[in-house]
Every structure is written in C-alpha cells, then in structure tokens.
C-alpha cells in the first residue's frame, strides 16, 4: 500500500538471516497463546511482541579497563485495545500459560483504564489506522560482521591501542575510551495477521583526550566526532571511517584549544558541520514534528511542539533551502527497520519542504485520530517491558544537489565561526529556545579558518535559526550522524536514531561566552 502524501515503499529486506537462537525461542507458540486469550476476552485488537536485546559496553581509562558489561534483555509484551482503551502487560516466563496470563493482565489494565475514563466522563476511544497484513516477513539490517561475533579481547585491545596513541601525544593527560554494541531481535504478531521477525545491530565507539594544566588548574577535552552507526564491527576496521586520521589530529586540536582565546559574545555567521548539526536537527525538527507531542500526548513530560497540527502545510519552519525527510529506510540508520512495533512497513516521507511544515511522524493511533490514511511507521518500544510509543524516524536535512563544499561555505563568510562536533544540548518543552555547544570552534576571518576559540555556545529560537540558513552544502558534505540515547515517554524509553545532513551556513546567530555565563 502506498500513500502519495506521506509514504513510499520500504527498502527490500537484506539477505542476512536472523540469529538461530532467537528463532529457537517459542515465538509463535507464545504469540498464539497470548493473542487467543486476548481475543477470547473480547479485545478488538491485540499484538504480541517478543524481544531479545543484547547490550555490551567497554570502558577504558588511560588505556586500562575501567568497566564492562554484557546484558541481555528478554521478554514479551501484549498490548490490547479493549472497550476503546489501551491495556498493556509484559512478562518473562516462556510458557504458553504465562503468555495467556499476561494477555489477561493487559485486558484487565484496559478495563481499569476504561473505568477511569468513564469516571472522568470522557468519550475518547482508541482506534488504529489500517495497515495491510504482512504474514511471515523477515528483515535484517545491513551490516558485515555482528559485533558480538568479535572476541572481547579484540574489542578492548583496539580501544587500548587507540587510547595509547592519544596518551603518547604531547599535551594529552588522560584518554577515555568506550564502545557500546547492541543486537536487537524482535518478533511481532497481531490479531490482523501480521507476523514479522527482525534483527539489527548498531555500535558506538568514542574516544576522548583530556588536557590538564597543573599550574593553572584549567582543563579541557577533545572527543571523536565519529557518529554511532547501524553497522557491524567493520565500521572500526574497514577504513570507511578514517579512525587513524581522527585520532592523529585530536592531540594537536586539543593543545590548540587549550591555548585558544575565549570567544567574544555576539552575533556570528556559523558554518555548522554535520557532526554538530545532526543534534540541532534532532532537537529542533525531529522532536518538534512528532505528532503525538504536537497533540499533547507528551505534554507532561517530553513536552509539546510549537509546530501544532493546525499549521500543517502553512508553518514557515525555515529558509526555502530547507528540505527535511523522515525516513525509516536509510541504510545503516539507527532508526531503520523493516516493520515498526505496530506492524507498519517502513517508509520515507517529507517533513519540511521548501521551508514549510508538510508532514509529521505518526503511529497508528495518532494517524487515525488526525485523519491520516496510514501510519508512517514510527511506533517503537525499547524493551519488552515497555509499550510502543511514537518515536523518531531518521530525520535528515537534504543536501543541495550541486551544493558547495565545506571549504566553499567557509570561504563565503567574512566574520564567523565553524562549529564541529557536538557536546552540550538543551531545548525548551515546545522546541523553541535552544542552546548548543560543540567540540571544536574555529574562527572564520575573511573566508578562512583562523584558529580555534573557546567557551562557545550558540543560542536561538528554532524558526529564527532555520530561517537564517543561507546556504546548504552539497552531497560531498553529507554525513549520517546520530545518537543511541534519545529519551521520551513515561515510563522512560531510550531510542537510537540517525540524522543525516550536509554542512550549512547560518547567518547572524547569537553566540554566548560560557565563561561569562558562569559569571566569571
């Protein structure tokens, strides 16, 4: 099924296979037991989701092991619509009786919910947007080597070797290293007949060099700008990302940063590197175009959105150069899937076109509530113990097809700052007012880089910032950045998401001096 307004078909499944040990679990038997009990108890809709998620992390301080863990979450969840209300329950006992009991608990929770709704005099009923049934589908993400197939000694050895390179350089007092790896298996079945089995992996390596001036007590750090990726172990070893170059330049960059002058607060033209801009996109566009937020379903916690539903098609989000997509199909994206946690096939669609708000991120309930023909597949739960909520697709800014290089963007700036790497971020509960810092700030004078600056933060209102975008870099500047730790919902859930973007030029952005902000 295609939706001309906000969807196109998913990428085809990759030929890799799902881990046999996951397939050996009683997936279908438990699903059948749970869905049958839910049906028998009168559920209008029921879905069953069994997940096995393995997380492993390694941390090194000064090239020595400082901690590691290897955690596997395993369990299943039953969600029902019963009497027009949601009910949810989860369990860990892998027996059909237990699965049926969990289904009954979910129905009981829906009944409890209906009582409270009735007590309040509300007429609100849960309904879901239609989606075709996908019987017996399998999808596996695109990667070479499963990081869990790599011996732990090889992982910690590589981190230690990289840390050693940093520590050997002049001016580096400490080196921190970490690696997070995840393999996520999901089995989904619902009463409409969809059954999907999926597997994906992701990993995030990170190294930080720290310099401490014993005499003055001043210190600072420089972190790698390599993004997390929906790739396998090859991301660290096959040369597609130039780790050697990044590690080699970090000590000198750090030494220069320690010597750099403090920025003078004021308005500057900013050339923002993708290693920084991805996070600004995440906070000011990604979250702002979640329709559940815009409607108020996250109002008490994550917040709402200035991009309210009544402004769809009219809100001037930013410059006419601005074209932003929601995408659950991008290869190696952290939010890339075959089917979401409501059985909706992955899609790609426009959120902002020519600077105007034209789309939202949806799940099935929100789609139905707001008159969309179909969900665009943004339901996700981060564990078997959590209910699926509307979570972010890979939200990305398109490069200009024949756009400039980063050097060309810089060359057009008379007096500005080139911002590289993310660090601190914060945005208000309606996604208006934000403040970001970074890893590296280079002064631009007369179209050329003129050394680093310290103590820089940029602060803006979302529409002012995107309205000030004066040039968008070409495809040669495009990088798929992202994060493992996007938080939303209550109970709190964490999702991984990618954001692709080119370098871009923003004019007259308010830059703060963080030392002055601290009253020093």
């Amino acid at each position, binding site marked *: 099924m295609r939706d001309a307004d906000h969807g196109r078909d998913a990428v085809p499944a990759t030929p890799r296979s799902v881990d046999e040990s996951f397939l050996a679990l009683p997936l279908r038997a438990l699903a059948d037991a749970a869905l049958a009990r839910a049906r028998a108890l009168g559920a209008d809709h029921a879905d069953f989701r069994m997940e096995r998620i393995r997380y492993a992390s390694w941390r090194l301080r000064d090239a020595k092991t400082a901690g590691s863990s290897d955690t596997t979450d395993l369990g299943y969840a039953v969600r029902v619509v019963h009497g027009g209300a949601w009910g949810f329950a989860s369990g860990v006992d892998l027996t059909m009786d237990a699965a049926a009991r969990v289904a009954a608990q979910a129905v009981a929770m829906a009944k*409890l919910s209906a009582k409270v709704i009735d007590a309040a005099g509300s007429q609100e009923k849960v309904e879901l947007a239609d989606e075709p049934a996908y019987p017996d589908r399998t999808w596996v993400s695109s990667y070479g080597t499963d990081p869990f197939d790599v011996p732990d000694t090889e992982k910690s050895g590589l981190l230690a070797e990289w840390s050693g390179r940093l520590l050997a350089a002049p001016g580096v007092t400490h080196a921190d290293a970490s690696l997070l790896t995840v393999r996520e298996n999901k089995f989904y079945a619902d009463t409409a007949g969809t059954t999907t089995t999926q597997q994906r992996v992701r990993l995030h390596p990170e190294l930080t060099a720290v310099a401490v001036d014993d005499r003055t007590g001043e210190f600072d750090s420089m972190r790698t700008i390599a993004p997390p990726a929906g790739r396998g172990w090859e991301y660290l070893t096959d040369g597609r990302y130039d780790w050697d170059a990044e590690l080699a330049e970090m000590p000198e960059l750090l030494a220069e940063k320690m010597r750099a002058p403090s920025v003078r607060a004021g308005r500057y033209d900013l050339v923002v590197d993708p290693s920084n801009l991805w996070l600004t996109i995440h906070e000011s566009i990604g979250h702002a175009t979640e329709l559940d937020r815009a409607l*108020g379903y996250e109002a008490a916690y994550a917040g709402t959105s200035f991009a309210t539903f009544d402004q769809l098609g009219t809100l001037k989000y930013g410059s006419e150069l601005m074209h932003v997509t929601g995408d659950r199909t991008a290869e190696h994206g952290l939010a890339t899937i075959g089917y979401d946690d409501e059985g909706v096939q992955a899609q790609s669609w426009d959120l902002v076109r020519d600077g105007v708000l034209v789309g939202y991120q949806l799940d099935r309930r929100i789609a139905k509530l707001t008159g969309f023909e179909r969900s665009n597949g943004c339901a996700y739960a981060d564990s078997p113990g959590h209910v699926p909520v509307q979570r972010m697709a890979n939200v990305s800014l398109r490069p200009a097809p024949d756009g400039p290089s980063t050097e060309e963007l810089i060359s057009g700036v008379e007096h500005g700052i080139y911002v590289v790497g993310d660090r601190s971020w914060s945005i208000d509960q309606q996604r208006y007012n934000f403040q970001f810092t970074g890893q590296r700030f280079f002064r631009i004078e007369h179209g050329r880089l003129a050394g680093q600056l310290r103590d820089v933060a940029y602060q803006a209102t979302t529409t002012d910032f995107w309205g000030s975008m004066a040039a968008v870099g070409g495809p040669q500047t495009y990088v798929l950045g992202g994060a493992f730790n996007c938080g939303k919902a209550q109970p709190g859930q964490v999702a991984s998401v990618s954001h692709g973007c080119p370098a871009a030029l923003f004019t007259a952005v308010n830059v703060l001096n963080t030392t002055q902000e601290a009253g020093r």
Partner: protein
Amino acid sequence: MSTRTPRTNAPHEIVERALALSRADGCVVIADETTTANLRWAGNALTTNGVTRGRRLTVIATVNGKEGTASGVVSRAAVTAEDLEALVRAAEAAARAAGPAEDAQPLVTGGAPSPGFTEPPAETSPDVFADFAPALGESFRRARDGGRELYGFASHAVVSSYLGSSAGLRLRHDQPTGTLELNAKSPDRTRSAWAGRATRDFRDVDPLAMDADLARRLAWAERRTELPAGRYETLLPPTAVADLLVYQTWSSGARDAAEGRTVFSAPGGGTRTGEKLSGLPLTLRSDPGAAGLECAPFVLAHSSGDDASVFDNGLPLEPTDWIRDGVLNQLVTTRHSAELTGLPVAPAVDNLLLEAGGSKSLDELVAGTERGLLLTCLWYIREVDPATLLLTGLTRDGVYLVEGGEVVGEVNNFRFNESPVDLLARASEAGRTERTLPREWSDYFTRAAMPALRIPDFNMSSVSPGV
C-alpha cells in the same frame, strides 16, 4: 506491594546455584526481581497503562592473574535454573578476556545474612492504585468542570535485589519507588502548572489536593507580564534545588576531581575537600536509613564505572555528609578511588538531603520577597562546562512574579545558565527541608529532601517562548 507469589525459580536459590557453579577465583551474583504498574494520562483521559514483571541475573566473575585480578560482568533477563551454567561460564570467559581490572579489590566479607534472604520477592500490582485511580478519575472530572486539562503519570515499581558472593555475603533489599507527576493546562494551553510527589506506596498522595494547588497556580497565571533576560532574585523551590544538586552529586567523583578534571579539582592538584562552598550552614548528605527516603544500605553495582566498582558489592553504606556546615566534606569514592585519592571510602547512596536550618515554607519565603521570581521547576538540564559545572536548562510550567510579598502574576519562561556550586555560594536564604521529587531526573533519582533557596541574582540567560 505486599502480595507474594510462589515461584519455581526462587531468586535466592538461583543465586546459590550460580555461586555453586562458579569456577572463578571469586564470584558475586545479583538477582533483581522487578514488578511495575503505571498509569498515564493526557487531556483528562488515561492514555496508556501497564504492568510489567522483569527478572535479571548479574554474574560477576573475578579471575586472579599475574598482573592483577580481572572481572567479567554478564547480565541476563528472564533467567531460569536451566540457563545458569551458560551465564556463569560467560561471565568467567569475559573475565579471562578482560585485562586486569584497575578497581580490583578483595571481595567484601563479613556481615550477617539479611533476614529475608530466602523469602520471595516483594511485588507491586495495579492494586497499589486501588484508592488513587478513582481519585484520579474524580480529579479529571473536576478539572474538566473547572476548565483545566490534566496530564501526568503515576508509576510504582518494586525491585527486590538478592546479592550473594563467594566471600559469604547473603544480602537482600526491597526497594519500592513511586512517583506522581501532575500537569495542569488551560484549554488553550497558554498556561501550565506542575506538581510532583515521590511516594513509597501511593497512600500519601492526593491527586485532588494537587489539582487544587495547580488550579491556584493557573489562576496566578491569568495575569501575565513579559520580562527580559537578566539576573533576578529568584526563589528555587525544593524540586529545582534537588535537580541541580543531584547533578552536582553525580559530578562529585573523587577520582576525576583528583585528576584535575572537575569543578571539585584544586588548582595545582588534589581536590577541594575542606573548602568552604557556602556562607549558609548547608549540609548536603545521604543516609540509607533516612525516614521516608530509605534505600539500599549496601552497594549494589551491576558494572564498574567512574564512581562504582563491582568489587565493592555488598559494602555497607553509611550516612555521609557531602557538604557539612557549608564546607565540602567528602567526594564519592569506591575503595579503589579512595586509595588513589587518600579520601575516605564513601560510595554513592540513592538518596540526597539538603539541610540548612531554615524553617520557612515556600509561601513564607514568598511573603518575605520584595520583588523576585518564583519558579515551579527546571527542565532539560545539561552540562555546558565541567570546569565550573555550568549547567543550562529551562524554567517550565510557571514562573511567577512576586511583588510586595505576594504572587502578582506569571512571567515568561527562561533559559538559565548557572552552576549549582556557585548557587550554593550565592544563596542568601534557605527554607525548611521537605521531601520533593526532582522533576528532571525522576527517571533515575526520586529520593530527595530539599529546602527552597533564595538566589539574589539567578542568571536567566534568554527568554523561552515555550509554555
């Protein structure tokens, strides 16, 4: 939370079997049994709710070698007796693959077994909301009749942790954690107010009373004044103080400080312990036995990190004064980082209390304010600069203008840039300490008691148009 269910895989038996299977030089096993129940609502209607049951077993194997002792940590959910051997072997393999652990220490010994070690885990269920849910429904009805929309979340979790070790420890702790957050908005969503509570069992929370307080605050907001960015005398309520000091506590690791990379580093080396941080007689402390804020009285570490060590598992936690009478008294240490820094052993504790001898309520502090701002809470707090512990974030759900000792209306929200360490130095008055819910960090930290603080010159860095 008191119902109990017979189990075929009793946690204490799982712990004993795992220890018996161990071939490592040392072994620590932690079994966590978790049940939760929650309700969530928006626009005066329940949206989602749920109950969950989880089981996690963590095996920490230690292996002695020529160059030191290594540790391997492997956790698995839903472990049954049949899964145990593979899990124990995986932990041992991880230990052998790891290099010597920097934080290696002898496993903790001594102490009597916890009395309930062989008893079934404590549980929660939807029954915890038996009185609360109808009251919540009634508060929805009243809100609708009163022209308010209610949003929020009620959550209750009980975690029973069983810790056993090859060194003889047999410890158990039951941790109930409940939170209630209630947010009221005007139907046009131009006014918003928030209240939160931490609770152990939902017997001490009253959504109707909270809604009534929020109705008062929404009424305050009917008169609105726009103020520019700047430094304002500001009353920080206990929840805001908690959010700032929780972050400060998370940033008070002794090792990082001694290495020169935190706000608590002393120029030229060492830490700032012993330095006066505040002119007020503030004491910031943790105490696992604090009434109403009880938390685990021994270390439960599922992995090693900067401020935690798996080798410290089972170590008794003592009442600890982090700041005493305004002087920095202690930074967070493991046994390893205590050796490195020369500071006493003081692991992190899961509660935090600030006491300053004040007796005034927030309303009384308002009455003593000639002109200033009264915050409701802070939001999206992130670290800008570790050297000063400069944090940024926003006000949310109501900033009120106080004139002549009374709230005279609402002002716009702001982004702030402030350091909690500096705020303690500049605070001119503290109210009485009361239990509070840190709003920003309530996913991670709920057991706090704080006073309100008066800050003469709080840095409102810019205006936030968000409501």
